[in-house]
């Protein structure tokens, strides 16, 4: 490996994204699930910046900025929902959140 190419970033971003997916599927704590979603968003951001550098086009970096904006809003609302769920069920276990089934 003499220089860092776009492929290396693709491999790294894929690895991080798959780790995030595995975390969402494996863990039951809703906070950890939210953190794994953040990890997936970051993997996509990394790929966007890599391709933005590769194509010498700043649109990718602007999009990453907007993804960060949406992620911040999402985390704020998601954690508020989580606190409310905890207040009602005394737990953050996602498998308890199947009340709509009954």
């Amino acid at each position: 490996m003499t220089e860092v190419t776009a492929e290396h970033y693709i491999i790294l971003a894929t690895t991080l994204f798959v780790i995030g997916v595995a975390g969402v599927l494996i863990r039951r704590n809703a906070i950890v699930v939210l953190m794994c979603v953040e990890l997936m968003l970051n993997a996509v951001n990394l790929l966007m910046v890599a391709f933005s550098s590769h194509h010498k086009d700043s649109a990718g970096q602007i999009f990453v900025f907007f993804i960060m904006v949406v992620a911040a809003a999402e985390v704020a609302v998601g954690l508020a929902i989580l606190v409310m769920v905890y207040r009602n069920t005394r737990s953050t276990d996602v498998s308890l959140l199947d009340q709509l089934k009954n």
Partner: protein
Amino acid sequence: MSPTIFLTLAIIAVVSAMFVVFAKNPVHSVLSLIVTFFSIAGLYLLMNAQFLFVVQIIVYAGAIMVLFLFVLMLLNLSADTEPQKSNRFRVIASASAGLLSLVFSAGMVIDATMGDRNVTNIQEIGLVKHLGKVLFTDYLVPFEISSILFLAGMVGAVLLGKRTPKESKS
């Protein structure tokens, strides 16, 4: 020089991301996620995306992770009380994640027409001066709309966090 930095940061990012998933204590998950975010920020710097490097550290490693840590400590989940999923489910989840990575690797068959693949050459596009100009001309409307999104998110978070009158009476 830069391949060494890239490899170091990539290994740190992947290992700490694994730790996020497999750590028993949620507080350890948060702390290793911060390490992941810092190494991703380092990769941004390697690609000369200086604006995103700063935003990543301020927004992700600063604001978002502090929010996570606050909620974690508010709910007092630091003790390991989390029930684990059954082993069968874990195997199925890992298998589907592996299949997904297979799909992704099939999708990234190397394209010979990509030309110059170097992503770390010195260029101006990641600097605040250039990005600011683009953000406030071509992307002005999305920028303003995102402020409305923030307002809606703020109102939603306050509304959800507030106790209902019925709850506070009892």
